[in-house]
């Protein structure tokens, strides 16, 4: 029997899909995370922007601060200096990282994983540490200062060397990803068509990684131009934008000029960010699901050359780490090199304390736990919420901004926003929570992209199936999505933990005597001339980060074995 239907709307009118209770939950949480990013990023950025147009009394004066900036040679020359150092560093690091990645992916040299491990060590260091190690190698009392042929370490030379070591693993990671997507079929085709090795390199290899190269260049550019640690230690009288912000704010208490320099630094960072996004999108498009992975064949001479190259680069990185380690345990460099733990007695040092180390651990732990939960839920909702295109679009945009904002700019922006007497969030100022919030926001984008990549690999119909079975989305989220994405979730938490341990730039403006951090203590001890204790603190950070990473690897392997049994047949 045909049951009479409930009154249907007249034909031809647009159907307005009913929003279910679950959809509302998703939207509310999505809006909540968007609000978080709005308050912790967009509002502070607005605060720093408006500050750059004001006097210290808060009176609007248009472009006067900018005019002052550009009419003070000591200030605007920093732009030229920053660009010079950054571009030279990129020109050194990108080819070196390319060759290193080439050796790891396209040769049959031995010990590949060992060299990869060594090359990635600098990721665990605050950028201050390679700089301090360079002081011990090439400084006034350096071991091999003659190697600089009488040139001064303090200035562009030292900064370029220090930055090169600091950014190397980041650039290498991008190159490795770009190279690992090689399609063996193209190489076979080239061979069958009679192309020689060199011709194949220029017609197959290089075009295959061209967007990876562009992306690597811009990531290198952003990291170097916004880095604060290396020029802080090795800058000397050579001014750069990043150190200028710090000097204006901490040294001269000229917050408005600090804001102006921050805005100036923001421009190349934003530009590099967009260039990188475009390059990355193209790189993804090159990937074909039917690609056959490339297997290198042994070529003794070539493999030998690659091995030699990797040994040289690996030795440089180990030398830097080894020097810092040695200096931290030497009684009195360079006169008494006997073993001593004196430099680890931080409580006796000016600007250092063991408390700062424990604060750093606390910060890293909170950042990893809260950050991972927020980032993964946010990414899930951006990917899976039905309808609500505007909200998702805004959220997607908000998630990408942090990558374009240099840490120093974010930290300074927090001062302006949270230290404003009229701001109800002001109670957070000078507390641990603001350090956690700032660090999560600072590193939000990369974590978000990792989560999105993992979520995109899941069958898009899981949600459709569970709604057809009347199972609410949050149940499927906890029972299926989270377990399946566990490897990515662990990676995100590790990424946030390590970065929270090593970061200096944003938090340098935000700590209080009670929440001093290890990386900041390093900076202050180095400032006060206690270089060896600074190196000791740096070693402690590297050691802890490496230890936590090891534990994380063991734990996640065990966890994966239990929860991911389905991965193995």
């Amino acid at each position, binding site marked *: 029997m045909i049951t009479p*239907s409930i009154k249907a709307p007249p034909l031809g009118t647009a159907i307005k899909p009913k929003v*279910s209770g679950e959809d509302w939950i998703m939207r509310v949480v999505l809006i909540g995370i968007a609000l978080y990013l709005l308050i912790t990023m967009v509002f502070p950025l607005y605060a720093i922007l408006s500050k750059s147009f004001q006097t210290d009394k808060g009176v609007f004066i248009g472009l006067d601060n900018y005019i002052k900036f550009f009419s003070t040679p000591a200030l605007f020359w920093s732009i030229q200096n920053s660009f010079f150092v950054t571009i030279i560093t990129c020109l050194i690091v990108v080819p070196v990282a390319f060759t290193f990645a080439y050796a790891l992916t396209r040769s049959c040299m031995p010990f590949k994983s060992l060299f990869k491990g060594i090359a990635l060590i600098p990721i665990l260091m605050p950028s201050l540490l390679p700089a301090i190690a360079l002081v011990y190698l090439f400084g006034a009392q350096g071991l091999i200062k003659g190697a600089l042929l009488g040139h001064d370490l303090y200035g562009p030379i030292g900064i370029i060397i220090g930055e090169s070591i600091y950014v190397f693993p980041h650039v290498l990671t991008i190159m490795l990803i770009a190279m690992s997507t090689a399609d063996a079929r193209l190489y076979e085709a080239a061979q069958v068509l009679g192309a020689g090795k060199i011709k194949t390199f220029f017609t197959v290899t290089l075009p295959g990684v061209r967007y990876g190269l562009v992306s690597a260049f811009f990531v290198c550019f952003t990291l170097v131009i916004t880095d604060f640690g290396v020029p802080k230690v090795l800058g000397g009288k050579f001014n750069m934008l990043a150190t200028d912000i710090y000097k204006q704010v901490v040294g001269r208490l000229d917050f408005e000029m600090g804001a102006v320099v921050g805005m100036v630094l923001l421009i190349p960072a934003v530009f590099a960010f967009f260039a990188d996004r475009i390059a990355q999108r193209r790189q993804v498009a090159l990937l074909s699901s039917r690609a056959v992975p490339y297997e290198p064949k042994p070529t003794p001479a070539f493999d030998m050359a690659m091995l030699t190259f990797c040994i040289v680069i690996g030795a440089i990185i180990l030398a830097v780490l080894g020097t810092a380690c040695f200096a931290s345990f030497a009684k009195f460099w360079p006169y008494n090199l006997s073993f001593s733990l004196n430099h680890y007695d931080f409580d006796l040092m000016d600007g250092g304390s063991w408390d700062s180390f424990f604060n750093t651990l606390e910060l890293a732990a909170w950042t990893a736990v809260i950050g991972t939960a927020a980032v993964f839920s946010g990414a899930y909702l951006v990917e899976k919420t039905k309808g609500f295109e505007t909200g998702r679009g805004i959220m997607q945009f908000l998630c990408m901004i942090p990558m374009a904002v240099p840490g120093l700019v974010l930290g300074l922006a927090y001062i302006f926003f949270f230290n404003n007497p009229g701001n109800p969030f002001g109670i957070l100022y000078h507390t641990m929570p603001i350090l956690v919030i700032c660090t999560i926001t600072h590193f939000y984008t990369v974590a978000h992209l990792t989560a999105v990549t993992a979520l995109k690999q899941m069958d898009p119909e899981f949600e459709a199936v569970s709604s057809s079975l009347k199972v609410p989305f949050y149940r499927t989220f906890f029972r299926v999505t989270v377990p399946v994405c566990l490897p990515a979730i662990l990676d995100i938490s590790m990424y946030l933990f390590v970065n929270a341990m090593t970061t200096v730039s944003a938090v340098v403006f935000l700590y209080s005597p009670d929440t001093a951090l290890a990386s900041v203590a390093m900076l202050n001890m180095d400032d006060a001339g206690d270089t060896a204790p600074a190196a000791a603190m740096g070693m402690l950070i590297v050691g802890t980060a490496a230890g936590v990473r090891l534990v994380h690897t063991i734990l996640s392997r065990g966890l994966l074995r239990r929860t991911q049994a389905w991965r193995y047949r």
Partner: protein
Amino acid sequence: MTATTSSLYLKAEKLVKKFGNFTALNDVSLEIFESEFVCFLGPSGCGKTTLLRAIAGLDIQTTGTIEQAGKDISALPPSERDFGIVFQSYALFPNLTVHRNVAYGLENKGMLKPDIEARVMELLELVGLPDQGDKYSAQLSGGQQQRVALARALATSPGLLLLDEPLSALDAKVRSHLRHEIKALQHKIGITTIMVTHDQEEALTMADRIVVMNHGVIEQVGTPNEIYDHPASPFVADFIGTMNFLDGQTAGDNCVALGGVNMRVDGTQQADDSSEITVCIRPEDVATRGVDANSENAIEATVAELEFLGSVHRATLDINGDRALRFRADFSANLMRDHAIAQGKSVHVAFPPDRLHVFGDLTDKAGAP
């Protein structure tokens, strides 16, 4: 057919679905009856999956209404509709065992554990996998995964089963086996079922009724026999099976002219003389045995090519050496021997009046030889 005896279960009226400027469904209306097995058939991009997703509420239509069991569900989210669904990818939860996958929808209904247990076992037996409950989907073959997905979709006893290209990812042998199994299962539990497929063989063997779609509209709805024997449009004629398209002219009541020969056609409408039309016939419908110049609708043709298909030879034939009148016909192995048919030889064939289909002039005859 079921269609005539059962009551109306699902009714879609004037569905339009737009994605930006692209119209994926254009004024689609359809009725589906209880316990019926309906296939949406068409080439990729024809709108069949869009229609299925609109019925499921996964991509709700822009305008138009859908009623299910007498209830207007046009705007409801999937969670408030009554259906089970199986996707081409199966979408089995990889971190849950087969058992937990099937139990997934039951656990949420607050059923008691022993009841869930019993129901899961019943379903696994129904799909023929009673002892695979502890495995993960990665440990199963494609065909087995398919059955688990089916069991999971049926677990909560929905009123409607939706199958989105469920067999496309399987190899040919498993596919034909599962075809029969799914059909038998559907018949046994009597659940109203809609299956989307681009495979005409699948649709012809499984469906009670087929909905042939193209470019976002329904070309024809009918039983497999109706669709095959009486295609309602040149598209259907071409899409289902093999069809010859020949240029002809009308020649009075129930008559057409083909290459200068007048032929009788059953049941054509009256048309002005000598207007251009297209005459269609399937290769297997061309009469080849015992035909001579005096047979009804006989025509003389020259063998241009011969293709060996096993039990039959498919010949390509020309009328008066005119390539526009080229058509294909099947010759049995016997006939080939008896008449010594070979390339270049002239033969008499006939077009039975009840086997000819006439369509208005086709400027675009996709797939015509």
